């Protein structure tokens, strides 16, 4: 099991958010989510410039087993997507909290989103789900 980096915040639908020094927010799916999905084979990412509201489906991660929507944990505008995932979707399996990030948003409202779980609260939530 990957260590959950303490600076991450989580949704109950297993996305994570990391605040980057430049004010943008990086988004990915949790280790728990990638394990449940199994080997990822395709990833669909949004266009840069697209504006997302909280909870909006913004990406699709598809494994050998199933396809799953990824929901925006916070509102904002897409400023970057992880192009490496097109060729190597397995990065999400290998490094869910690092090289397997999906996209970066410029948040509509600076700071962390409301209703997100801390890393330690997510660990508890994940153990129950």
């Amino acid at each position, binding site marked *: 099991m990957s260590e959950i980096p303490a600076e991450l915040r989580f949704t109950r639908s297993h996305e994570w958010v990391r605040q980057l020094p430049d004010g943008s927010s990086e988004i990915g799916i949790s280790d728990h989510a990638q394990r449940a999905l199994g*080997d990822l084979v*395709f990833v669909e990412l949004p266009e840069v410039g697209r504006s997302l509201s909280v909870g909006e489906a913004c990406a699709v991660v598809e494994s*050998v087993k199933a396809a799953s929507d990824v929901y925006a944990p916070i509102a904002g505008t897409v400023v970057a997507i992880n192009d490496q995932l097109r060729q190597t979707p397995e990065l999400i399996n290998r490094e869910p909290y690092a090289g397997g990030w999906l996209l970066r948003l410029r948040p509509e409202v600076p700071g962390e989103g409301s209703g997100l779980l801390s890393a330690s609260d997510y660990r508890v939530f994940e153990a129950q789900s």
Partner: protein
Amino acid sequence: MGRQTCLYDLHCALGARMVDFGGWDMPLAYGSQLDEHHAVRRVAGVFDVSHMGIVDLRGARSGELLRGLLANDIGRLRQTGKALYSCMLNEHGGVIDDLIVYYLADDWYRVVINAGTRESDLAWIASHAEPLGVQVLERTELAMLAVQGPQARELSAALLTKEAGSAALALQPFFGAQLADWFVARTGYTGEDGFELMLPATQAVSVWQRLNAAGVRSCGLGARDTLRLEAGMNLYGNDMNAVTNPLESGLAWTVAFEPGDRQFVGRSALEAIRARGSARKLVGLVLDERAVLRSHQRVLVPGGGEGEVTSGSFSPTLGRSIGFARVPSATGAQVEVEVRGRVLPARVVKVPFVRHGRALIH
């Protein structure tokens, strides 16, 4: 909690992700199912298939029983140990199960049936066996391991005595033999060479561990599904069931209409369907888009008509999605499939998609 095979604790100890399959708790994958798939295509993998039923039919009239119960003709089995793949049908020609039967002696056949249909198959077989005085013996004391891949036979035979090992390596495809206390069959469900080993359940854990130590990778049902799909092999319950017949399931080749005087359950229904022409057929599909075919997706046929994906997944060997679909018989080389709200073009192709590690589709 479901039923467990004698390897359950070992699967858990090996870190397997367990899932329900036909009422059994079975390993889906031990790590990456893609790596497990490639291991079988390139080296060797071992699968626990002990959830399948091993049933021995004993008695002078066991051959007569199977000639009446199976759509394929066991009269074709003339050499000891020879195996035959067949469907077992109901009166409407629907598939009750697909199975493998081994001819061991004139009064002894061994049948391997699916886990999900095990109880209903046994009841069905027993009801026909009783009037013929044939004994139906479920061999629950045996475990079954499928060892598959280009190096599977060599690595498995090395665990046997020298004599039994050479006899195992001398088996022709689709033959089995009792070698010491193992029944070794050169059969499988992956499109690779290999063995299916039926051995005392008490030996299963140690044999599995010795196979692992020899370089045979533990593989779960996830890899088993992508391997069989690439190999163009049907999965009971997905690609055919009690309300679909072999002629619309890509299994016409397994129905022996000759000799014409052999009466088997489902024959008259199948003959009627054959005479008017089957309305549907099962075809292979390849998706060139970056998406994955899944069972029950809708297939749209140009010029009208619809079908349904019966099995679909990502093909690790081809790097894109493949599947089977049941479509109108007039369907040509191109269809469209509704995949998560999008309509995507798919090519209709001949199966298998992959054989002995080589892609047959481009």
